């Protein structure tokens, strides 16, 4: 097999990857897209096997190493993909980011150790200057991705004793200065490696990058995890592209940049939905300014009702919009909600779901959770598609959501001013299910709860919805 043919096959694989992303523009085409992705990966791996066979000549033992690694890793991946609960998707994704990051670091180390084996041609016995620079970039991005993702994983799962794995942000004085100094040191070592191709600066640089990854993520609170997960998604792509540069492999560059830009776009969308600036996210430590606005917490009267009242109200309306939040998923109430929806539809009520971009703990998380409960995706609407309809809606049923329906976002001076919200307050009636009157992530009181047309139903979401189900019969 000639090298030209190998590269052409790699091109074919790259096109498959683009098709895989393109397929996701609609649920109907998405499965075909995923098949394209798998095909692309298969082509890439088989081509590489053929390339190894050609390059290694008689000594074929190298392939055994490859297959050994694949069986172990692939087996682990398959088991995880099968077992993972949909509520745990953010953890799985964070875990996978760390795999990519670490893998990129390992490859870079191997490339520095034996450049010729990876197809880097030496100039005067040294790695060419350009490749040295690219190896440096690939390594530090990979290392930051790895350690950052490990911290993000810990924060997301939230059940580790270790302080750095807990949801609450860790802030200390001079944090940004420390990060800056470390980053400069790392760059310095990079330049040193760049000039001399020695192991010492390479190893120091790698160590600093691992520490930096930790430092960037620890000051970020649990509520901001959707942004962090998307940001690390982007980093993992850039790490792959960096490795592609150092190995002169265009397929790695293409795939890496697709992933990198995808993650960047998702972070941008998440930032907008949470009303944060993109740059403060990139620089890290952006969750720090929160938590000071717990101010007016005097008990104000709310109208509360029972499940029977809710059932009566829902059963006698023409149109209902359900606003699910992560509280719904925590209570595992999706299936009960789905049954309630079916009963209401059978009674001739129009039922729709309204999803805020940050419902759930990662982009699109709530959609997957609803899909898992077999809610048809054409009942589920994105914020911008349904916001104009709230005015004509009889009842809005808010389940386990708070900040995303807080009208304070329309009041200048409020901490969440400017954040896009679901305009639930425009509906004729609002029902809110919460466990208690505690405030949401942003620590703000929600005006919506005190409106005359709002009825609060306190209790566990699953229990409440099941009671409504009984009452609807």
């Amino acid at each position, binding site marked *: 097999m000639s090298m030209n043919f190998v590269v052409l096959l790699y091109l074919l*694989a*790259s096109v498959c*990857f*683009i098709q895989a*992303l393109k397929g*996701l523009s609609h*649920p109907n085409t*998405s499965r075909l*897209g*995923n098949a394209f*992705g798998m095909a692309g990966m298969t082509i*890439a*791996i088989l081509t*590489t096997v053929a390339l*190894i066979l050609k*390059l290694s000549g008689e000594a074929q033992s*190298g392939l055994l*190493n*490859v297959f050994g*690694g*694949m*069986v*172990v890793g*692939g087996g682990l*991946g*398959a088991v*995880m*993909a*099968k077992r*993972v609960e949909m509520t745990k*998707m953010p953890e*799985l*994704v964070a875990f*996978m980011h760390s*795999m*990519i990051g670490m*893998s990129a670091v390992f*490859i870079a180390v*191997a490339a520095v*150790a*034996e450049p010729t084996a*990876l197809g880097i041609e030496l100039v005067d016995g040294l790695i060419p200057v*350009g490749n040295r620079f690219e190896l440096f970039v690939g390594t530090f991005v990979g290392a930051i991705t790895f350690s950052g993702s490990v911290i993000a994983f810990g924060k997301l799962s939230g059940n580790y004793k270790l302080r750095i794995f807990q949801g609450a942000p860790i802030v200390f004085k001079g944090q940004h200065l420390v990060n800056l100094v470390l980053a400069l040191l790392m760059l310095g070592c990079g330049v040193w490696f760049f000039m001399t191709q020695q192991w010492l600066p390479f190893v120091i640089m790698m160590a600093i990058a691992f520490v930096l990854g930790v430092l960037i993520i620890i000051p970020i609170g649990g509520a901001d995890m959707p942004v962090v997960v998307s940001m690390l998604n982007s980093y993992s*792509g850039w790490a*792959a592209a960096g490795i592609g540069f150092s*190995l002169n*492999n265009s397929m790695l*560059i293409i795939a890496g940049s697709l*992933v990198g*830009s*995808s993650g960047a*776009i*998702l972070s941008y969308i998440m930032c907008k939905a949470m009303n944060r600036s993109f740059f403060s996210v990139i620089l890290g430590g952006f969750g720090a300014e929160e938590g000071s606005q717990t101010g007016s917490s005097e008990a104000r009267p709310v109208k509360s009702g029972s499940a029977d009242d809710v059932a009566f109200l829902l059963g006698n309306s023409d149109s209902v919009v359900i606003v699910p939040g992560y509280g719904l998923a925590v209570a595992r109430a999706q299936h009960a909600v789905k049954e309630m929806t079916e009963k209401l539809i059978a009674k001739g009520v129009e039922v729709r779901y309204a*999803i805020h971009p940050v419902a759930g703990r*990662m*982009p*699109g*998380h709530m959609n997957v959770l609803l899909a898992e409960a*077999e809610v*048809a995706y054409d009942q589920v609407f994105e914020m911008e598609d349904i916001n104009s309809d709230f005015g004509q809606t009889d009842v809005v049923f808010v389940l386990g959501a708070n900040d995303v329906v807080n009208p304070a976002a329309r009041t200048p001076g409020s901490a969440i001013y400017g954040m896009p919200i679901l305009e639930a307050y425009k509906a004729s009636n609002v029902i809110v299910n919460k466990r208690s009157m505690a405030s949401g992530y942003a620590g703000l009181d929600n005006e919506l709860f005190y409106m005359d047309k709002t009825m609060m139903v306190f209790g566990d979401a699953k229990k409440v919805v099941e009671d409504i189900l009984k009452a609807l019969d």
Partner: protein
Amino acid sequence: MEVINPTIINLIIFVLAIYVGYHVVWNVTPALHTPLMSVTNAISAIVIVGAMLAAALTETMLGQIMGVAAVALASVNVVGGFLVTRRMLEMFKKKPKKVAEGASK
């Protein structure tokens, strides 16, 4: 004529690929953003190509250990990423039987 530095060619590919990625990803429906993340996880595991070369063609102990470890880590994502994406996308399939049931009630 002077030979163009391969890094420059890589840079051209890089810029164009970001451009393609930008436009393709904006077209992804928000409902599928979680599958998008898991599939991009699988796609970025394309570093497995470099890992395979490292595992198979290096001769020193260090190179081989690094290579095999990299192959194993990337394989987790290749297999896990695509399978979990498929699992999620299956959930978004329309359920014709269920719909018919609902209509007949």
